[in-house]
């Protein structure tokens, strides 16, 4: 079992890494079910969350994950930092590195920042979302949630339908890679303006009408329509978008028996979600949030309890 050095993208993680982290998550789910959900595995290690972009669930789930493994946590919020005095990203990273940290959890609005930061520190880097590019821990959460709900390790024969703003979605990019790696067929449903131009190279099938594919969907993944997209002219208006791509009661009824519904949050009720997802028996949205902590525990454990970190303990049996 070889541990990884960074978690940057699903491609770098690879199939074996993905499978290893999903198996490790089972152990963390058990820890979280204990009366005292805390283990000392990362005692003495420090995890910094560095969020240059807003986040509720990702940030809180990483911090909870670090604490449940007994790591010390530091939190950096741009609004109260020296970034306001003009400190560069590199200086911020090097300053925090000098304080002695073991991992950075990074979210940034620009694609590629986690790869860039890697050159400036010896600490492990976890990509918690970079621009439109990747959000690997969300993909791990989603794969784990489907694996748990459908009770299967491989996704061969499953169809994952991702609906909405694929173009601007790092969640979609990471999920397409991860689900395809586990054998699922991925279908994208979006207006042409919300599909990326390089889609020809992706392992996906494209549809422009949700109604064409909903009947053969096993996992329906609704993306959030970021409202600022409308002002940029990607969609004519929210009502039209909702009519063609929103999930309403009629479409829920047309899903095959046993199909499940997912959403990465935060949700736009009345736009992509026209039904109350809490009222749907086949919604996995709450499981996605609940599994977020366990998956991120597995990631931090794998990064920080690897062979490299154990070397400092010397050769003892």
């Amino acid at each position, binding site marked *: *079992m070889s541990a990884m050095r960074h978690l940057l993208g699903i491609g770098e993680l690879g199939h074996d890494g993905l499978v290893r982290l999903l198996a490790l998550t089972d*152990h963390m789910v058990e*820890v979280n079910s204990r009366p005292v959900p805390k283990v000392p595995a990362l005692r003495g290690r420090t995890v910094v969350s560095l969020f240059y972009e807003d986040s509720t669930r990702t940030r809180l789930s990483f911090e909870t994950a670090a604490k449940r493994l007994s790591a010390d946590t530091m939190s950096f919020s741009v609004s109260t930092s020296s970034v306001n005095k003009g400190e560069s990203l590199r200086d911020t990273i090097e300053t925090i590195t000098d304080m002695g940290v073991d991992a950075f959890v990074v979210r940034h609005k620009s694609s590629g920042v986690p790869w860039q930061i890697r050159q400036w520190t010896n600490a492990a880097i976890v990509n918690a979302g970079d621009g439109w590019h990747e959000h690997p821990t969300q993909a791990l959460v989603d794969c784990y949630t489907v694996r748990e709900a459908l009770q299967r390790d491989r996704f061969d024969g499953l169809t994952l339908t991702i609906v909405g703003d694929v173009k601007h979605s790092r969640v979609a990019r990471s999920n397409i890679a991860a689900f395809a790696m586990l054998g699922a067929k991925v279908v994208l449903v979006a207006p042409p303006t919300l599909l990326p131009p390089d889609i020809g190279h992706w392992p996906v099938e494209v549809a422009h009408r949700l109604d064409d594919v909903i009947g053969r969907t096993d996992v329906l993944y609704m993306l959030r329509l970021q409202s600022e997209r409308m002002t940029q002219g990607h969609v004519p208006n929210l009502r039209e978008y909702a009519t063609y791509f929103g999930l309403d009661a009629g479409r829920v009824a047309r899903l095959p028996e046993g199909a499940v519904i997912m959403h990465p949050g935060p949700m736009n009720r009345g736009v992509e979600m026209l039904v109350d997802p809490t009222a749907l028996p086949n919604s996995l949205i709450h499981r996605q949030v609940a599994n977020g902590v366990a998956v991120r525990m597995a990631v931090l454990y794998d990064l920080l309890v690897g062979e490299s970190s154990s070397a400092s303990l010397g050769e003892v*049996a």
Partner: protein
Amino acid sequence: MASSRTQTTQVMSRSDVARAVTRIAHEIVERHSGLDGIVLVGLQRGGAWLAEDLGAALAAIEPAYAVPVGMIDVSMHRDDVGLRPIVPGAISRIDARIDDAIVVLVDDVLYTGRTVRAALEGLNTYGRPRAVQLAVLVDRGHRELPIRPDYVGKNLPTHRRDDVSATRDGVTVEVES
């Protein structure tokens, strides 16, 4: 490096192991005048089969009382965390309430005592037992912590370099010659 020649000696046969398990089961019943409040917790992975066999042996002695059998994976509680990574699938599972129970930790081989220390700490995340005891099939010595077993299948003096393997099929020692 050490020479590649090794010699393997069998020190307990399959029936020796079965007899030792039965004897330990009787000792547990005798010490507690029954099985009320007893919970067995096997240490993943080596202690898992022994905890199951011990549970079956206890059920044969006192059929009226079903002793809960749980498993604990101590990887995340070790002081040398990282040297022994989590083994996928060897997940902790303790369904019984352990508050005020008498927990008997079960492992195949007792050596430095560090695994048992980790298990004692791990148990605290499930509750506060009334007492914790330790049952092992083989005590091979070389303790590094103040830990001693309450029930022992066999005391086996070994060298640190020896490799001890304990399964249902018997106990073997691999010695460098």
